[in-house]
């Protein structure tokens, strides 16, 4: 071949390579082989990306160049980065991801801080960032810090931020309740004249509602829902008019999200003077939708009761006030995954009837220790008697959950007859008998948990009011409201099942050595504390005397003795801590040596065998 021909062929080859590589770079196909399909965006996230109209810009701040970043955090950060790349890929030109490494004392670091990102300090004194800013035009959403403990929620958080940044107006929520959530509690009649009585402070839950929604309260006597609602909250509702119940039914069937809190026994009603009903159960609706809820059964947990002090020093455990811990909560759903403890007060439980086209995701489930009591058997004056009447059943009882799917109307015969003044009402012109779009109902079988009394303390200080939650009830409320305010597609988003890929063997070793040395470690630490206290005491005595007091020879000797002992104890402590690490260090060494040598030894053996075989072949006379 001539040189020119070769050159031309080469150029042609190069051109086709460049062309092909450019084309394949736009190929969207990929297969995700990870467990849980970690890098595959779920349908709701894809739907959110589809809806982007103006370009969304994501700035992912990750202190990549910090050398002392713990390896675990580094891996976590890189996983977020890869997930963001999937967003970018899926969002095509509408989503731009920028990865920024905010090095110390740079403009990038300043921008990160200005945007409200939380830098976290490292043992070396450096500050590292792992957060995100999402922008569209002049709105922005910030994730100050990605928490590695909540890895299963990363997609939810990113998608929520992208969804919210595109929101210009607050959505509208209708509130149907017999509780004074928005207006606050009226003080009892005899207290009204008292000085300083707090009149009408809205519940903290109202703040959450107003943060995400424009709220419109609906009276139980209304016959229709307002026309432009985006979501509906029905919380311990009063008796609903037939037409209003039908309106609620149709709202759900149209596919709009509904939050419903019903209560077999409202503690709040017991204490209130404003005529709050003691029970709520829109039976017709629940029953028609295929949800079984027994309004007379109050559910509880014998193993996780709440301890109540009667004020005279006697403590009762009340099983029908169950304390809900982590193991009762759905760890994989964004509504409950970051909650630790809730207090429900005389809740009920429910089930979804089989054969309906509905999917129930439990949020709060009681298990071992669960049971019930008939509501008429509750004796509020005598908690011990109530507790004795409690029947333990130990089966799973769902106290809260999300029901999704195709609901059937609770009014199979169409709309109810018009009320007393038919002239004032427009007749229903069209209605649904089955969900048009997938319906979504968040159902909680208790309403007391929303009340401030059972969730937080209000502190007033110099004219300012501050809330201090004493459990996570407030956050459950806020999570539900946030969830309702998200776009419809967001609600299908789940947290991923958490994956634990840590070294189980190392954890076991750690636990074993800890067990072995714990007693000794505690004893030594206590001894050290003692010696230090003694030393301090002597120094203090001397200080009190203005430092002029010369130490007696005995004191000097004591100081020396204590100092010596301190050194010895510290030495012993060091040894133990070293011993604690020793097992793990030796495991590391062993594994390293194995990895370093096994394959080379294998190769050498193979080589030797091959050599011998050849030699035999060569030396064997034919």
């Amino acid at each position: 071949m001539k040189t020119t021909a070769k050159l031309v062929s080469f150029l042609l080859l190069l051109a086709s390579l460049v062309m092909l590589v450019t084309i394949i770079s736009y190929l969207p196909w990929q297969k995700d082989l990870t467990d849980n399909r970690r890098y595959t965006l779920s349908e709701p996230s894809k739907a959110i990306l589809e809806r982007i109209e103006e370009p969304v810009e994501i700035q992912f701040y990750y202190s990549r160049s910090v050398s002392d970043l713990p390896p675990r955090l580094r891996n976590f950060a890189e996983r977020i980065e890869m997930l963001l790349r999937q967003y970018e890929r899926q969002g095509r030109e509408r989503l731009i991801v920028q990865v920024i490494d905010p090095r110390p004392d740079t403009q990038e670091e300043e921008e990160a801080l200005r945007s409200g990102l939380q830098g976290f300090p490292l043992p070396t004194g450096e500050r590292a960032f792992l957060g995100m800013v999402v922008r569209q035009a002049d709105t922005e959403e910030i994730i100050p810090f990605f928490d590695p403990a909540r890895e299963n929620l990363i997609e939810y958080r990113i998608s929520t931020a992208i969804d919210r940044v595109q929101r210009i107006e607050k959505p509208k929520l209708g509130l149907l309740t017999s509780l004074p959530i928005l207006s606050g509690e009226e003080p009892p009649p005899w207290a009204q004249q008292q000085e300083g009585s707090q009149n009408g402070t809205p519940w903290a839950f109202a703040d959450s509602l107003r943060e995400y929604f424009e709220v419109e309260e609906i009276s139980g006597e209304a016959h229709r829902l307002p026309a432009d609602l985006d979501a509906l909250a029905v919380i311990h509702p009063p008796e609903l008019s037939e037409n209003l119940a039908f309106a609620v039914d149709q709202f759900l069937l149209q596919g709009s999200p509904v939050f419903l809190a019903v209560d077999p026994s409202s503690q709040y009603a017991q204490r209130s003077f404003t005529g709050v009903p003691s029970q709520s159960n829109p039976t017709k609706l629940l029953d028609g939708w295929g949800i079984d809820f027994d309004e007379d059964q109050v559910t509880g947990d014998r193993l996780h009761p709440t301890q109540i002090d009667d004020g005279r020093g006697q403590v009762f455990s009340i099983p029908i006030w169950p304390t809900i811990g982590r193991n009762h909560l759905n760890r994989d759903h964004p509504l409950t995954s970051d909650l630790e403890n809730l207090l429900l007060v005389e809740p009920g439980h429910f089930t979804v009837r089989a054969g309906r086209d509905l999917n129930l995701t439990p949020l709060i489930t009681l298990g071992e220790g669960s049971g019930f009591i008939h509501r008429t058997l509750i004796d509020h004056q005598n908690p011990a008697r109530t507790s004795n009447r409690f029947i333990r059943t130990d089966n799973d009882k769902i106290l809260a959950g999300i029901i999704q799917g195709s609901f059937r109307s609770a009014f199979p015969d169409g709309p109810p007859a018009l009320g007393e003044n038919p002239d004032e009402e427009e007749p229903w012109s069209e209605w649904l008998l089955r969900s048009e779009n997938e319906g979504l109902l968040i159902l909680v079988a208790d309403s007391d948990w929303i009340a401030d009394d059972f969730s937080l303390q209000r502190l007033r200080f110099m004219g300012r009011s501050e809330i201090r939650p004493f459990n996570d009830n407030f956050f459950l409320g806020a999570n539900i409201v946030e969830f309702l305010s998200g776009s419809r597609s967001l609600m299908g988003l789940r947290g991923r099942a958490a994956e634990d890929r840590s070294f189980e063997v190392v954890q076991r070793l750690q636990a074993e050595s800890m067990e072995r040395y714990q007693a000794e470690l505690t004893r030594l630490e206590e001894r050290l504390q003692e010696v230090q206290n003694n030393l301090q005491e002597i120094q203090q005595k001397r200080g009190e005397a203005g430092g002029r007091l010369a130490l007696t020879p005995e004191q000097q000797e004591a100081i020396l003795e204590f100092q010596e002992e301190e050194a010895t104890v510290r030495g012993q402590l060091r040894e133990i801590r070293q011993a604690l690490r020793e097992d793990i260090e030796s495991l590391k060494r062993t594994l390293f040596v194995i990895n370093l040598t096994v394959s080379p030894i294998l190769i050498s053996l193979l080589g030797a065998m091959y050599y011998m075989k050849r030699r035999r072949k060569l030396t064997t006379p034919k």
Partner: protein
Amino acid sequence: MQQVKPLFKREFAGYFRSPVAYVFSVVFLASAAILTFFPGQFFESNEASLRTLFQFFPWIFLLMAPAICMRLWAEEKRSGTWELLFTLPLTTVEAVLGKFLAAWAFFTIAILLTFPMVVTVAYLGTPDWGPIFTGYLGAILMGGSYLAICSLASALTRNQVIAFVLSFLICLVLLFLGIGLVNDLMGTLLPWWLAEGISQFSFLSRYEALMIGLLPVGDILFFILLGLFALATTVLVLER
């Protein structure tokens, strides 16, 4: 193509006859273990995955592939066996393929000999097998691209040292294209479409997705196309 198989066999067996090949693979395996455990902090990461190992592959390959391939053609040219090779009933394409496949097979074995790491993570925790599979698959494909490029460099010269340095440099450039700093620099110096186009050729970013458990068709095709291109160019260079 009939002659590919015998040539492949001969070349492949050749690796096991040469003490140099043993040294290379031992160096490769030792450096993989050392890098994973020390700078990679595999043990401290407390995560049962091979990510720490995989992230060093592109860098170790940078030395390994030129070392394996440098003698591929340069040696034949220098010692004159090249002339002899082509007196055989063998086309250039067959010769290039046979030698390349032998080198690739040898390299694949070396990569798979890091298997004690797989055993290690399985012992320590519960690994996700998907990323381990895609990581190895990606490493083998990427190794193929490296080797094809090095084979080309070796065909260009009769001096093994020059072949080594040349392959090293080409691979280094392809590797550096994926580093953020270089990308930023190119973005400021070149028009965006050119910078964007060039960054498509980066080994690092093409391997990234495979390393974490994804099988992106685009990246897999990239390694194959790049390899085919380098091999076709090798044929061009050797063709008389």
